[in-house]
């Protein structure tokens, strides 16, 4: 069971959050191709390892969080706002 340290509310159980997938893929813009939208909508990196992902704190502040989590151990090593990114040296697996 995950315990996610929300920067606004403190550490809370996963039951308060809703997962919203990969946070590393920006939505294509109107200028992009159908293939780009198809990749954005259906393609998944789905790594076994570190994953930067969206969590919406629906049972709390209703803010969107960016969370870096390991998909096997479930360790969470970084949480930030949508604008922020984990430090690059932390990003290396």
């Amino acid at each position, binding site marked *: *069971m*995950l315990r996610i340290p929300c920067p606004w509310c403190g550490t809370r*159980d*996963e*039951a308060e959050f*809703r*997962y919203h*997938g990969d946070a590393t893929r920006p939505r294509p813009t109107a200028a992009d191709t*159908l*293939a780009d939208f*198809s*990749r954005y*909508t*259906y*393609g*998944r*990196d*789905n*790594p*076994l390892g570190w*994953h930067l*992902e969206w969590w919406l704190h629906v049972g709390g502040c209703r803010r969107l969080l960016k969370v870096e989590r390991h*998909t*096997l*151990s*479930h360790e969470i090593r970084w949480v930030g706002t949508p604008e922020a990114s984990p430090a690059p040296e932390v990003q290396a697996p």
Partner: protein
Amino acid sequence: MPPAPRPSAPAIAPERTSSGRYSLWRLLREGLNGQRGWSRAWVKAAPRPRYRVVIVGGGGHGLATAFYLATGHGICDVAVLERGPLGLGNVARNTTIIRSNYFQPANIRFYDFSLRLWERLERSLNFNAMVSQRGTLNLFHTEAQRDLFTRRANLMRLEGVDAAALSRAAVKALVPLVDLDNGRYPVLGGFLQPRGGTVRHDAVAWGYARGASEAGVDIVEHCAVTGIRREGERVVGVETSRGFIAADVVCLAVAGHSSELARMAGLELPIETHVLQAFVTEGVKPVLDVVLTYGAGHFYISQSDKGGLVFGGAIDGYNTYGQRGTLPMVEEVTAAAVTLLPALARVKVLRQWGGVMDMSMDGSPIISQTPLAGLVLNGGWCYGGFKAIPAGGFTTAHLIAHGAPHPVAAHLDLGRFAAGRTVDERGVGPFPYLH
């Protein structure tokens, strides 16, 4: 859509017979001999440097594909590579249910094709996997649900598949433990597929492994694939912990880990890996004859021949490769259990476990060629992998042998996402946690 071809009874090639025929007479004979005459159910093969077909993944689908390649298409130059011991992934972690009650016509055809193969599995394999057609019963609790199930049952009947609507009284007669009024979402009725049921899951892997091995397939355990070698847009073999193995065709049958394997070939798949949990109780004398599905929460349950009640619920909602259960899901599933079947309140739950599965973006599987020549994918099984093992293996073997999809699996191609021909059973779109 042409009618599904009848599965042909595969003949087992006599030459590599390793364990002999199983029968009551042999069991009795061995009994007088201290059961010493049995030998390995499948040969523990060492890998050769090249094969016509290399199947990655010694689970249900990989072993079934090998079996049907060898016995149905005469392609015996096949290796099944498994990184650990065979049959310990999802084929060993599911809740053993078989059924073909689906909303999309193409899925009804595919899963019923599978059900027909299950119905003759023991005779095909000479291995008793205890296919038990005890019926699957879906309860409904609202009129909207009744309408959906009516639509599905009618479609099944049009497709020549069995389905029946049950009244409240008939539900109670079939499952006396059900509390029809259960305080919150009363049971309004149910839909029964009498041919649905359960199968002894481990035996499926062992039976296909034995059959494939006897037909000449090399089953190579403890052989981890570490890379997929490409020459341009063509796959030519796999790098493994036991060296490079060349192949004309590489088939991935590693549901749960399809993305990781496909990445080795430079492919990205419309798949996320999620954990689905299952539970079993202590054994009790028979109390539940059918496979029962609650309609007001995520909960389904059946009783194994050993007496344990096997049940499960929904996925946890985020991608994970961790094969373990979580507490919130335990509470959700058991609350549904006590609500629907209050008589179970004092029965004790013995174990919980998790299996990681390929959740595809439309909730339906993928049996397909890929953008790379020589690479075939069998994956994306979501919750439906176990019940599909015979059909998945049969149609994947067909795809490898003929280079073209089998008609009952043609809708499961990888191209459907880009083309807008998704097969979305639940109509929830590309959100695996909703399927």
